[in-house]
């Protein structure tokens, strides 16, 4: 069965979602991955948005986290203050998985979504943190979507918007952050993980048709490829649910 790299990405991320997770998601493919996760393998997962919408019934794909489509048949339409409290509350925060994206990522999963170049005089300005820095600070696991390019997987970020593992295993603790952190980086070529002890990024899976060496060639720093295996391709069921139930208008899959 034919599928696109975007479909593989959405499904690879959906497989990282566990039943019972409270899934924080942003716009675009992260929203699609959350929807796919819920419909494919984690029916008891809950989709929630930083705008305050909890357990939205997404009959149509929202194009932004404040899209009125996220407000339909929610459990609660709360405020931003409520949404961010949910992420750090000691009883609910441990169930929250955050899905993020960024312009740059480093080997410890720290993210830049603010500027390229000097902060004072940037060559390129991006949207900024939004809720990303908050999510990265608070939640137990983050899944990060990236296009796999050397200029995006960089040895040093131009600006650190959101904390990953900072500078290694003790980084978050030293900074005063909680125990969670980056869990997976889902790209158009591969799924990267973070080494349990060193917290450095490694190649966990490469998609069918992609070689580990090709992944290395597109990564701006060294990564361990010794544990890598090929990602199982999307099953017909996964593809059908993604296409027919999650994005029938192809607004995100294109």
């Amino acid at each position, binding site marked *: 069965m034919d599928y696109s790299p975007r479909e593989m990405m959405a499904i690879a991320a959906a497989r990282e979602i566990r039943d019972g997770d409270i899934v924080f998601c942003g*716009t*675009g493919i992260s929203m699609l991955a959350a929807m796919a996760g819920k419909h494919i393998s984690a029916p008891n997962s809950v989709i929630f948005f930083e*705008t*305050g*919408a909890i357990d939205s019934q997404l*009959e*149509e794909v*929202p*194009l*932004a*986290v*404040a*899209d*009125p*489509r*996220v*407000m*339909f048949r929610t459990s609660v*339409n*709360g*405020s*931003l*203050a409520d949404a*961010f409290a949910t992420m*750090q509350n*000691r009883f609910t925060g441990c169930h929250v998985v955050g899905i993020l994206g960024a312009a740059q990522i480093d080997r410890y999963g*720290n993210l830049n979504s*603010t500027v390229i170049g000097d*902060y*004072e*005089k*940037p*060559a*390129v*300005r*991006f*949207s*900024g*943190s*939004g*809720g990303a*820095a*908050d999510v990265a*600070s*608070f939640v137990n696991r983050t899944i990060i979507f990236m296009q796999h390019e050397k200029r995006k997987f960089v040895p040093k970020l131009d*600006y*650190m*918007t*959101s*904390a990953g593992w*900072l500078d290694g295993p003790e*980084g*978050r603790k*030293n*900074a*005063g*952050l*909680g125990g969670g952190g980056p869990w997976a980086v889902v790209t158009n070529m591969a799924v990267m993980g973070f080494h349990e002890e060193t917290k450095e990024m490694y190649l966990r899976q490469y998609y069918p048709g992609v070689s580990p060496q090709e992944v290395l060639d597109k990564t701006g720093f060294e990564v361990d490829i010794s544990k890598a295996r090929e990602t199982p391709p999307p099953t017909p069921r996964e593809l059908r649910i993604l296409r027919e139930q999650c994005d029938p*208008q192809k*607004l995100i899959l294109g």
Partner: protein
Amino acid sequence: MNTNDKVMDLSEAVRRYVSDGCHISIGGFTLNRNPMAAVYEIIRQRIKGLHLYAHSNGQGMDELVGGGCLAKLEIAYGGTGRFASTCIRFKKAVQEGSLQVEDYSNYQMTLRFLAGAMGVPFLPTRSGLGTDIIEKWGFSREMRTADPRLPDYKLRVVENPFGSWGDAEKLVLVPAIHTDVAIVHVQKADRQGTARMEGLPFTDVEQIKSSKHVILTCEELADTEEMRQNSDLNQIPFFCVDAVVHVPFGAYPTACYRYYDYDPAYLSDYSKYAQKEELFRIYLEKFVYGVSNHRELLDLAGKERLQSIKADPRTGYAVNLDRR
């Protein structure tokens, strides 16, 4: 406490409460419930040098930037989802250096409005520890100490004064915001200013309560009697409000839950106009300066367009709207 009739027209409300150099905030989030009629009126009145505070503002913020109304911006996010992943006029202004920006996160901005609403100087969070949001300042220390309207520090990191209580060793303190005016579009308000938002309230309640003056624009001007029934659906007490302006489609081209969707055609066209200076001048001439009020902008959009974004009563948005 003012229980008087606060209804006035939009040009009067803006003339009365928004002037050059004011510190303001606008309600809504990216492409939802931005007070667009008021934003266009501010641009038409050629108000300059505004200091805007925002969490994730999109369309309203970007048009104020493009209209040349802003000097300074404290913000967490500038984008309108798929229509502009980074707001285009905002991006250009920052890259050119014509707009001074201070970056925070959404939660930090929310806490800053909440601190203003509560009357405390700051609130603590752990958000942003270890990042450049803490390390890098858009407004320098010198600029801050020279300006009595700004706190001396962007934020401060402190040891937990309660020791290890609450499992936190360090905290980020974010300073309260006190604006001159907050402008929010709501679904319903009465003539005194008691107001009701439907769908997500975002941070609008905190923004309203942290402001000296408040302009509300509303889809429907309701009887006080109606608003006092089921008053648990109301969020804004009348004494916070200075002006109530009845503006149907007042959030257009952004969405207003249960009334209308965002207009994908307008937002897509805007993204094209925003790409180039010449085009953006044409946009402003036609859609902002070329009309004398919001009604005339809606006439430009046309009945058919407005009909197509009308909310379905079951879902609160326009089902099967062509959003490509």
